[in-house]
Structure formats: structure tokens, C-alpha cells
């Protein structure tokens, strides 16, 4: 009997040999060695490791799942990167934002009486003290609304200053921005890596610098 074919030996990896095949394997070291090699190959295939998907695979999948409505669109907290922030930190941040927003609103409203004072008045919305996550989220939304309104008012004042329509008090604006910077910095101390607070601080600092340059250019500087 000649050597067993590889295909036959491949069958014998997990099948019983016929008496003739068994007899040959007892006598033929080449075929016995080949069968052993095929067994090891099969074992090694069974031990092949898992394979990690390419980097960025989850982000693509997440976008697809979202576009098909299979996962929820992240809420306000998640979009602000606050979804995993501890509750006490969220509450503290909401309070700080509230203080910042109210402070800005008070300053703006005081110095912005007249037909365009509405935006400033929005900032004086009252907030209830957050006692739950939902309350804190509501406060954050309202604080954001106040902030946006205050910012709109700043831009309004800035535009009018550009066209020389009116001479608003830049020092009051600067003071309000300083207040907002301090509130943002306090919030960042509570949540240092938070993208929303860092963005808020950056934009407030930029606004403050613009205001400072205007004060400086107008010769109305007191420093």
C-alpha cells in the first residue's frame, strides 16, 4: 500500500481510520507524522485569536445606528460631554452658570434700558435650586438661554458701537464679561476637562479682549 493521500489524512484528523488505514499508519512513520502535523494544524486553527476591528469602526457604526434610529440621539448633557459627570458636579456647574448668567443679565439690563433691552431681561430668568439631575439639566438649559441672550445683546451693542449709533458704556460690558470669565473659570475648576465650559471660557475671553481693545482705542480707559 502506498502512502495515504493528504485528503485522506485530513479526514482522519477527527474520524476513525479503516482497519487498512490504521494498519498502514502503524507501519508508516511518514504518514503518521503527516497526520500528526494535520492534527496540530487543526488545533492551531481552533486557537486563532479574535481580531480587533480597525480604529474608528465604532464611530462609523454609531453614526449608522443613529441615522437608522436604532440608538437615541444623545441628549443635551451628552452633547455637552456631561453625561458621565457626577451629579454633584453637574449641579455645581448649573449653579455657577446660573450665577454667571444672572450676573450678566443684571449688568446688561441695568445698562441697556430702552427698546432693545429685551435680550438683557431674558437673562434675569429665575432658577429653582436643582435637587435632581433633571432639575440640574433644566437649569443648564435655562442658563444657556440666558447666556445666549446676553451674548446676543453684547453683539448688538458691539454692532451699534461700530456704526457709531450710540455710545454704550464699554466699561459695564467689560465688567459683565469679567464676571462671566470668573464664573466660567469656577465651573472649569469643578469640571476641568469639560468641553462646554472650556468653550464658554474661550469665547468669553475673546469677547472681553475685543471690549478691552475698544475701550483702549476710544481713550476711555481707566487703567
Amino acid at each position, binding site marked *: 500500500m502506498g502512502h495515504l493521500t493528504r485528503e485522506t489524512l485530513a479526514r482522519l484528523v477527527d474520524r476513525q481510520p479503516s482497519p487498512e488505514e490504521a494498519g498502514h499508519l502503524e507501519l508508516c512513520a511518514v504518514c503518521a507524522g503527516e497526520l500528526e502535523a494535520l492534527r496540530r494544524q487543526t488545533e492551531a486553527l481552533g486557537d486563532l485569536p479574535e481580531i480587533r476591528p480597525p480604529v474608528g469602526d465604532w464611530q462609523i457604526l454609531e453614526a449608522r*445606528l443613529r441615522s*437608522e434610529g436604532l440608538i437615541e440621539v444623545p441628549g443635551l448633557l451628552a452633547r455637552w460631554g456631561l453625561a458621565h459627570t457626577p451629579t454633584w458636579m453637574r449641579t455645581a456647574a448649573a449653579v455657577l452658570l446660573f450665577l454667571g448668567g444672572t450676573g450678566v443679565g443684571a449688568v446688561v439690563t441695568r445698562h441697556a434700558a430702552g427698546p432693545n433691552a429685551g435680550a438683557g431681561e431674558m437673562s434675569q430668568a429665575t432658577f429653582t435650586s436643582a435637587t435632581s439631575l433633571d432639575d440640574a439639566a433644566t437649569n443648564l438649559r435655562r442658563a444657556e438661554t440666558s447666556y445666549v441672550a446676553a451674548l446676543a445683546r453684547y453683539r448688538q451693542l458691539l454692532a451699534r458701537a461700530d456704526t457709531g449709533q450710540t455710545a454704550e458704556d464699554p466699561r459695564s460690558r467689560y465688567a459683565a464679561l469679567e464676571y462671566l470669565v470668573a464664573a466660567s473659570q469656577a465651573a472649569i475648576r469643578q469640571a476641568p476637562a469639560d468641553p462646554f465650559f472650556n468653550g464658554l471660557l474661550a469665547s468669553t475671553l475673546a469677547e472681553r479682549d475685543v471690549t478691552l481693545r475698544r475701550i483702549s482705542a476710544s481713550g476711555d480707559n481707566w487703567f
Partner: protein
Amino acid sequence: MTETQLIRQAASGDGHAVRALYERYAPRVYAVVRRIAGDDELAQDYAQEAWIRAIRALPTFRGEARFSTWLHRIAVNAALQALRKGETRRKHEGPFPDQVAEPPKGGDVLLQEKLERCLDRLPEGMRRVLILHDVEGYTHEEIGDVLGVTEGTSKSQLFKARARMRDMLEALSDDARDTGVEVWGT
């Protein structure tokens, strides 16, 4: 959180729960799909399709089988159906490409790389049966179900595939002898 809770939350559209399931099972899903596809680019598409199908079907998961088994079946079917649709992989024909010099690797890692390379070069029919049987542990009956072939065909393809793999590994081991790493020399 238990897997059952994760599954329930994922079924209700909780993105964090879906992510947690993905983190847990993505390597297993990707591995089987990659080996069936025999191509990295196709594998990513197939794996994504498998996950979309699985998340879509999550509300119907009753826990009668293990979640990993259920997911694995979905992944295998997604890859096989995509291949049937004609999304063919790049052909791996001809001799093995020259190897770029790489740092020395452990025997197991080197062997696994060789096995993966040889798997990629097997003809489609043989590769699918070999992967499902020897890598994933399917029975011939199960292979017959998912591939739509008889058990006899499955067995025949398996033995041919094992023999072909052995041929290719032996060819590779000629090179390996030069570097001192052999693949089960006879």
C-alpha cells in the same frame, strides 16, 4: 450591569448599552467576518452590517441561546449573504508576496500569521467550510444549513481545505527553515 440588562437597554435604543455590547463582542464578530471575507475592507463593511442587523433584531432576542452565539450567527449570515451578493474579495493568487523584514515574533504569533495568510488564499468554498468547522466549531449539519450545501459536500470541502492548507504551510515552512521557525515539518 449584567448582560441581560445591557441587552434590554440596548434594545430600547440606549447608545451606551450598545457601545458596551460592541466593546465586548466586536473582536469576535470582526474575526469571523474577516476570515470569511478574506479581505480587510470587505470585513469592515460586513461587520458593520452584522452589527446593524443585530441591533435591529435585539428586541426579538429572547435569550434562548447565548447572546454571543446569537450574535455570531448573525455575523456569519451577514458575511455569507454579502459574499453571495457578489461583493467579491480581492483575489489572493500566485506565490506569497515577499515578506518585509519585521522584528522577530514569538512562535505562536508567527504561526497565526501564517495560518491567516493561508486561509486568505484558499478557494472560497473550502475557506468558508474550514473556517466554520475548524475555527468556529460548527458541525457539518450546521454548515449545511448556513451554506445551503449537503453534509457530504461540507465534509468533502473540509478535507480538501485541510490538505490545501497543509500544502501552503509546508511551502511557507521552507522559508521558515531558513529563519529557524518551522511549521510542523514532517
